């Protein structure tokens, strides 16, 4: 039979290690089956471990105070007895099936690790949970998600693929809601987008004047404020644009109020809070409302109430330096206005080519209830006010 190694069994339920508390035998000593060899202390208890064999102690593999992992040798015993049990030997050979318990396999699958590539440490060559986790650390997201030369990964979460070439991030909360809203809207409302290039120079002059106006000292005046006011005035002239398609009832709901949505990029993702009853607000009140909405979005404190029941929306893509685009409607709304970047451009003004502050406007609308003519006049009205804000006096 020869020299056998007695390895630390799991003396409790699911323990992984034990500390040697006291040896009861010494090298050279004869032992019999069930004679206590050693006292070990685990996270749960102090236990005595008996000998599986009758024989002579050859060597102790750990000293008092040592922490020994389950499966590691504790003592070597020369056991001549034929009845001595065989020790568990490691599984070798590539054709052997991989030994791992289902939860461990599930963990490996979740982490994107092929269990066959994991180095087993369990008795009999079983792949343990720890083995899988160790294999996972070898290819940690921190290591793989970073570009060469970067200190840190640009992704803060997710699971890096085993080959390190991609990271999967679960779709959650805002991202999920955004996706659902976009799919719902894009595939139920037939979108049409119309465009208008506008000379904003006078609007920019107005913005400048208002910024110096004492009445607006407590408000932040931006070109967006004037765009918002222009849209409200256009809605006042063409209230049919401020409506909703009720497919179930086969009815169109025309709203007598405007909850003006402003698409906002926040740390949590895209949100569209709205300014309630914006149609009743003075320009000053509208400026304050915009300021509150933006501040809340920045602070991440946008409430569900603020995002509910919008009737028409502005998306200010100009802040990203973009000229224009074809925005997707907020679900349930009939129109969305995209406001592009304001930049000086060569413009024919008074028969001369002059540098003017120019922007692009795009209006997407739900073609089920908004005809091209309606969408076009709404956009045209907005453009007229931005070209000459004084027009607002005529229409308000």
């Amino acid at each position, binding site marked *: 039979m020869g020299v056998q190694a*007695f*390895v*630390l*069994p*799991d*003396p*409790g*339920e699911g323990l992984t290690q034990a500390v040697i508390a006291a040896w009861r035998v010494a090298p050279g000593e004869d032992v019999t089956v*069930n004679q206590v060899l050693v006292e070990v202390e685990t996270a*749960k*208890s*102090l*236990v*005595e*471990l*008996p*000998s*599986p064999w009758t024989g002579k102690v050859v060597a102790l593999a750990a000293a008092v105070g040592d922490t020994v992992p389950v499966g590691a040798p504790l003592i070597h015993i020369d056991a001549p007895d034929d*009845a001595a*049990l065989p020790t568990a030997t490691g599984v070798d050979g590539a*054709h052997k*099936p991989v030994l791992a318990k289902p939860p461990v396999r599930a963990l490996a699958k979740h982490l994107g690790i092929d269990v066959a590539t994991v180095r087993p440490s369990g*008795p009999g060559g079983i792949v343990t949970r720890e083995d899988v986790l160790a294999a996972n650390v070898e290819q940690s997201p921190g290591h793989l998600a970073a570009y060469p030369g970067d200190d840190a990964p640009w992704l803060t979460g997710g699971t890096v693929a085993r080959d390190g070439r991609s990271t999967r991030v679960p779709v959650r909360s805002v991202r999920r809601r955004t996706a659902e809203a976009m799919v719902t809207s894009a595939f139920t409302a037939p979108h049409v987008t119309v465009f208008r290039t506008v000379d904003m120079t006078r609007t920019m002059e107005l913005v400048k004047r208002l910024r110096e106006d004492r009445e607006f000292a407590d408000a932040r005046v931006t070109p967006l404020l004037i765009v918002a006011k222009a849209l409200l005035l256009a809605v006042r002239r063409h209230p049919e644009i401020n409506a909703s398609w009720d497919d179930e009832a086969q009815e169109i709901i025309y709203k007598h109020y405007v909850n003006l949505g402003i698409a906002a990029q926040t740390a949590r993702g895209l949100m569209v809070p709205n300014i309630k009853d914006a149609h009743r607000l003075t320009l000053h009140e509208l400026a304050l409302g915009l300021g509150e909405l933006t501040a809340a979005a920045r602070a991440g404190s946008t409430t569900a109430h603020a995002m509910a029941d919008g009737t028409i929306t502005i998306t200010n893509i100009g802040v990203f330096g973009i000229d224009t685009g074809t925005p997707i409607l907020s679900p349930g709304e009939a129109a969305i206005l995209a406001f592009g970047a304001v930049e000086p451009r060569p413009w024919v003004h008074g028969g001369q080519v002059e540098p003017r502050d120019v922007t692009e406007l795009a209006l997407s609308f739900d073609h089920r209830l908004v005809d091209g003519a309606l969408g076009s006049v709404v956009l045209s009205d907005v453009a007229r006010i931005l070209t000459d804000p004084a027009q607002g006096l005529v229409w308000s």
Partner: protein
Amino acid sequence: MSLGDHVPTLQVLDPGGQRTDAGALPGELRHLRTLTPAHLIAMYRIMVRTRAVDAEATALQRRGELGLWASCLGQEAAQVGSAHALAPADYAFPSYREHGVVLARGIDPAAIVRLFRGVDHGGWDAAAHRCHTYTLVVGGHVLHAVGYAMGAVLTGRDGTGAPTDEAVLVYLGDGAMAQGHVAEALVFAASYQAPVVFFVQNNGWAISTPTRAHARAPFARRGEGFAIPGRRVDGNDALACFAATAAALADARAGRGPAIVEAVTYRMAPHTTADDPTRYRDAAEERRWATRDPVARLEKHLRGIGAVDDSSAAQIGAEAAEVAIRMRDACLALGPPQMEDLFARVYATEHQQVSAESAAWASRRVSHGAR
């Protein structure tokens, strides 16, 4: 209002092994009188064997050969004494610590370790031995036992006066008595007047919770509100356990309904091998109970009446050691469980869905080369 803690406790053998039948009720006395020295030696032999098997299994667990072991050290009299009261037709429902009951029913101890080695879920033919397999859900089997006993009522297998009348003996502990489903079991047992005896081994500790923390009155009185009579016995006295259980089983068989027997004993070992009782109970308590060792008590009595001497005691001890070694060898020879067994033991007869799953497994095994 106060209920108090005062119920008489039947003791037939005192800690010195002296026998007195004075405290026994007439029904109990009748059964005590049937005991011959040969019966007592048989009980003692099983108790010694139980202790040897228990110690060997604990060692096997410490050597990594069993996943877990629940020792019955200190409860041998409660288990073997009560099991001795079972008639051949009676049915026993053990929890997971009733090694003495299992041995008393003639089951090979090697069958017990199969469960604790993770080889199968049971280990013996429950119907053949009239002894259910272990249930690890605390108190779960009490419902099974009552259901079985209700079946006896519904099929007329109790109260006929014929020797085929049967009763059920279900083993539970103080901890199980705090389980909601055990209360339900008591309701059904009483409602159906089912022939079932609840043998409560009050060993003082529900893992680390002392009995007094969850039972303000003796378990022998727990049945009062259910109209189930109760009897408290010294659980370290094999004869008291036998007498009270035998009387209760006889009543049950005769159609007089359920009963509770509370055996006050002590779990001298940890709850299981994964437990360390030094963290919650003091050594003085363990020393106190060590002086009430149930095996030693019966041995003193047997020596006192001349039924056992040094040589026969040594022979019984040696034979028990042999049984334990045979169990050890059988345990170490156990191969890994076969997947096919999983399908084979779901239903008694062939079942369409299980057969389909078994076939699917077999084909998977071929394609994946899994064991």
